[in-house]
């Protein structure tokens, strides 16, 4: 493969530019390095989820081909790649919407092939969607309360009376939901139907709904798509806070390279359904295959 010096130069320039332009989130990690310098990598040992030689085919189309990587407990893992690289398909495999044609996914040491999305949810995997998938007819509060469904146990009898255990449970979970509302600073829109909210807030409510599940693994599919700089900063802050305060493992897909390089501990790069690079943001940024995938190769 011939290396085009121009494309490498452009890539380097682009990388440095985005890094310096992106406003650093303040005080997220005590050891936050100055921009430009590669961050001293946070070390994670325990593997939470391992993707092992996963292939996914729809008829003749291969969406994923023998992809392997792992997500370790406590880290922020980014999945990047050009459009159509198979990133969302990968998330769909992880939380059970698609079943891999080959290969296996191991979550918390347990291998699994076929799994329904609600089983993934009860296993502790939560997710947000590329295009907001909120319950439009319900209020912010109800949306986030719906995220607590798995944790609510009161039986039909008490629910019919809305009394005793059912009411205690409602109040108890309302308290947790209010904490999430405070955390995301959406107190003012508590009772607004989410269909009426602006896009940025909807994304935030969706994050809140996923958080309400108290997941072990949080999958974020383009959490910052279509946001302006300020909204992106807010969202980055929330993602870092979730990771820091709750210790939630996060896997995110994002197209804003500045955000990806700043937030993530490790990055996996997909292109045409294949893994082409895996490593710290600093390594990935300099990987020739990644540069080629994003900027093209001269023929």
């Amino acid at each position, binding site marked *: 493969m011939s290396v085009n010096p121009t494309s490498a130069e452009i890539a380097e320039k682009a990388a440095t530019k985005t890094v310096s332009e992106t406003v650093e989130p303040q005080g997220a990690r005590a050891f936050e390095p100055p921009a430009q310098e590669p961050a001293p990598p946070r070390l994670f040992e325990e593997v939470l989820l391992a993707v092992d030689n996963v292939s996914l085919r729809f008829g003749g189309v291969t969406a994923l081909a023998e992809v392997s990587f792992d997500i370790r407990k406590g880290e922020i893992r980014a999945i990047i790649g050009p459009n159509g690289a198979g990133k969302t398909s990968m998330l769909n495999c992880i939380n059970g919407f698609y079943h891999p044609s080959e290969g296996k996914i191991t979550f918390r040491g347990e291998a699994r092939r076929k799994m329904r999305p*609600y089983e993934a949810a009860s296993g502790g995997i939560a*997710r947000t969607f590329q295009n907001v998938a909120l319950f*439009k007819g*319900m209020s912010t509060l109800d949306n986030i309360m719906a995220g607590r*469904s798995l944790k609510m146990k009161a039986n039909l009898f008490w629910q*019919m009376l*809305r009394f005793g255990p059912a009411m205690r449970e*409602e*109040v108890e979970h309302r308290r947790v939901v209010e904490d999430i509302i405070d955390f995301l600073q959406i107190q003012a829109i508590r009772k607004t139907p989410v269909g009426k909210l602006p896009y940025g807030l909807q994304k935030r409510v969706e994050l809140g709904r996923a958080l309400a599940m108290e997941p072990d693994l949080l999958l974020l599919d383009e959490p910052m798509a279509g946001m302006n700089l300020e909204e992106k900063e807010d969202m980055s802050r929330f993602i870092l806070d979730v990771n820091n305060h709750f210790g939630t493992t996060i896997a995110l897909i994002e197209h804003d390279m500045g955000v990806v390089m700043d937030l993530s501990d490790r990055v996996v790069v997909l292109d045409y359904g294949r893994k082409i690079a895996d490593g710290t943001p600093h390594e990935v940024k300099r990987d020739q295959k990644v540069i080629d995938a994003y900027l093209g190769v001269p023929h």
Partner: protein
Amino acid sequence: MIYREAGQFKSNYAADMAVFPLRQDRIGIFVIILLAYSMAYFGSTFMLQAVLIPFLIFALAAIGLNMLVGYTGLLSLGTGAFMGVGAYACYKLMTIFPGVNVIVWIFVSGFFAAGIGVIFGLPSLRIKGFYLAVATLAAQFFLQWTFNRVPWLYNYNVSGAIEAPRRTLFDVHIVGAAATPQARYIVVLTIVILLTWIASNIVHGRIGRQWMAIRDMDIAAELMGIRPFKAKLMAFAVSSYYCGVAGAMMVFLWYGGAEYNVFNIEQSFLILFMVIIGGLGSLIGSFFGAALIFMLPIAMGAFLPAIFAPLGIRVGAETIEHLRFMILGAMIIFFLIVEPHGLARLWQIVKQKLRVWPFPY
């Protein structure tokens, strides 16, 4: 007494999550219930028998269907048949176990309807929208056929009809020829209030949220750990239970007897129209819808001849019946286009306006 929430502070979550958080609403509902009971003494026999009892029974059926169509987003055209299941189950139970009080059987007959509803709700796990409506049509035709062709269901009665035997509650006749409209009205009203209260509790709780989540975005709901299988079948069960109880009440507390064709597809459509006009996903809307559809022809029958008689135009009963269909059709089109949330939404807007009156916002 101005409709205002100023000065009403909530100091705990339970108060904030109450079904009627405003004091005025609580007083209002209390007054309405009081008035409803007093109608048993002030209302004429015609008023009770032809207006209020059917209104309450249809409102209950509409609540049942609303939980399915409005809250869970599953379209069903089998309401009439599920009402029939309730009615026939109640009839069989009453005649096999005459010693047990009829009120018990009215409530128990709902469970039979719920069971049948779950069976015919199974297709909802794979299909949605119009396709599901067609699948529930199968329930409508199959069950209606069963009511006609299985003589065991109507105790081999030569007329093929089920007739209400005489039954009492606290030594007062409530079912059968000897029951007064007053007694039946009080029983119907009590059952409807009780079941409406339970419905309101269900839709405001976890189950209601699960239903609405399935309705609004089923993929995301599944991802929250809501099992579509359980939630949808639960919706079919609860909805059919309500329809079954409404059907049993319709035969034994209103008509006094019925044939299989009472539970035909027109009945299903009528209740679906009540739900659409009243407001999808609203319990109070079910009452509005039932009131509008049921009382419209009665009101027209009372007023139209009086209005047109001086002009020399005779308005007969058949004209009113035709007008009723025309107005109903026009209203359904109007509501589907202009206000898909129905009368309940108009009520919401009025309440919102009242809250800030005399200011615009």
